[in-house]
């Protein structure tokens, strides 16, 4: 590999990103901060039907929608009489590489092939790497996956070790790195050296690939129940899952479905900390990704992130590590479905939220993921104990990330904590404001854009910007 310095590569960042994604993001700029989001997505050229057609060629999508009768019954043992919505799950583990990430990878790899790139590369430590590797194998393209895989003692996070194995099984080269955000530097170096397509999680292709998930699930719910879902819950990390699913739901006519984002609460742990790396017990679907990406989507590896969760989420909740491990056991024991823990974050949330809804209402957990060696509560909790974390049964409110994982004693103890969206919106606007040069002027176009971004109105945006202006400048 060419060894250019950190600063040399980072200075070429814009140019490398442009040539590796093959999109001219600049042409969508409409204001100082505003850009034509819908135009960027539309120009990618994949409406829902086209995306489904591409995905069907590699057996991606058309996954079963499964009603969780026994978990619904368990909800009703703890809910008020008459409450306890029907819970369904979209069994995305049925995709070729075992998760909904195949949907995201399929359009990217299809696009890379169509444009004649020699290979694809992705910066990911999760299911997405396996998905890109699987799609690349099918398309006959080379694939490189860059992972943050082990800490400075050489201890690998077991779930990521399993992803290494899966990517290698699909024929990908896997670059395993120790902890740190300079992964991005290595990734840019690889893109520059190879000329591969950047199969970014945040490109329009990646997000449009998920629209089919929301679209399919709306049609399946209607077919099975003669109504549309009342709530859809998505495990929330980088924002693509929420964004794509919500867009797909709208395209299927489910505009009134409540879109709920759910993350595992990892507050107190630092995402770039070598010490904390193996103390998270979750590699994705947690607040360490969802908070920064919701409040500042453009921190991504492309100039404009196509995943913009604040535009779509009606509600944002967190659950604890112990609650997710508990519900993972329940899913296996009561429904005969052993699935990976991270995707069950939204199932834990569904268990709590269904208790507040009527029995005829419908809640959909929009994904499962495969489970296996490393990617399993046993592997995570054994590692947690090795790292000195206490694992106990008890009240989940005593759960403390990095110190104590509390597995609930009773199903009634599973609850969600609502994230205050007004604060998240303010935080988003603060990031926008802080990213601007001191002499930048915001125009009406920008205020309208920021209102869309935050699902508020211009008055709210002006108010917040004025507040920030007087305190910060």
């Amino acid at each position: 590999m060419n060894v250019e310095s950190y600063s040399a590569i980072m200075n070429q960042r814009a140019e490398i990103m442009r040539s590796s994604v093959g999109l001219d993001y600049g042409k969508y700029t409409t204001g100082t901060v505003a850009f034509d989001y819908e135009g960027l997505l539309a120009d990618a050229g994949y409406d829902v039907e086209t995306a489904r057609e591409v995905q069907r060629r590699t057996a991606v999508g058309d996954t079963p929608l499964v009603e969780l009768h026994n978990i619904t019954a368990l909800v009703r043992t703890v809910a008020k009489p008459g409450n306890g919505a029907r819970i369904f799950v979209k069994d995305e583990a049925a995709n070729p590489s075992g998760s909904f990430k195949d949907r995201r990878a399929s359009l990217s790899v299809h696009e890379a092939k169509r444009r004649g790139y020699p290979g694809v590369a992705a910066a990911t430590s999760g299911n997405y790497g396996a998905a890109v590797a699987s799609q690349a194998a099918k398309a006959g393209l080379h694939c490189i996956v860059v992972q943050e895989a082990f800490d400075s003692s050489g201890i690998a996070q077991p779930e990521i070790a399993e992803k290494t194995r899966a990517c290698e099984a699909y024929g990908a080269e896997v670059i395993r790195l120790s902890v740190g955000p300079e992964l991005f530097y290595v990734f840019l170096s690889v893109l520059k050296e190879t000329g591969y397509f950047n199969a970014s999680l945040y490109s329009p292709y990646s997000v449009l690939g998920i629209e089919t998930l929301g679209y399919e699930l709306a049609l399946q719910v209607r077919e099975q129940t003669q109504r549309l879902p009342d709530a859809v819950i998505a495990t929330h990390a980088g924002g693509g899952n929420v964004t794509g699913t919500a867009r797909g739901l709208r395209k299927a006519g489910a505009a009134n479905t409540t879109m709920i984002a759910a993350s595992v609460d990892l507050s107190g742990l630092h995402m770039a900390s070598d010490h904390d790396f193996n103390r998270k017990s979750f590699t994705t679907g947690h607040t360490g990704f969802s908070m920064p990406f919701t409040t500042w989507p453009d921190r991504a590896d492309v100039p404009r992130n196509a995943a913009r969760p604040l535009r779509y989420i009606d509600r944002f909740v967190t659950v604890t590590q112990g609650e997710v491990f508990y519900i993972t056991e329940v899913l296996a024991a009561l429904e005969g479905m052993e699935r990976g823990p991270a995707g069950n974050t939204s199932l834990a949330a569904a268990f709590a939220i269904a208790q507040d809804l009527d029995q005829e209402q419908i809640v959909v957990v929009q994904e499962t993921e495969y489970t296996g060696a490393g990617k399993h509560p046993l592997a995570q909790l054994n590692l947690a104990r090795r790292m000195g974390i206490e694992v106990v049964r008890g009240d989940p409110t005593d759960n403390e990330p990095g110190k104590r994982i509390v597995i609930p004693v009773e199903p009634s103890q599973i609850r969600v904590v609502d994230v205050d969206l007004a604060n998240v919106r303010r935080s988003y606007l603060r990031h926008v404001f802080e990213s601007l040069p001191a002499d930048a002027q915001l125009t009406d176009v920008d205020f309208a854009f920021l209102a869309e971004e935050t699902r508020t109105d211009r008055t709210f945006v002006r108010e917040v910007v004025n507040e920030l202006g007087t305190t910060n400048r």
Partner: protein
Amino acid sequence: MAEPIAAGTWVEIHNVVLSPDARAPQIPADTRQVPLEMRVKGFLVSPASVGGQADVVTAAGRHLRGTLSQVNPAYTHGFGAPIPELSTIGAEVRARLRDKGHAT
């Protein structure tokens, strides 16, 4: 130095990508104390010894050079021992459904 490993063997190489003093400014103090390390697998191009420099060809066909760290590296991740705090959950929720009159 150990016996040379034959060309064509599947191995792992290790490199330090950034020494502690070259790391990005924004990272936490504990991470800044350690180097950014890289491990990649490939087929040995020519015989090399563990601990010595080695050239490999990766699965993507790239030629890389680094310290030969492992020969035919094993996948060692697994499940580990059952976790007692999880072991009884299935029976607990099945009993709960039975008690409340749901057959499962």
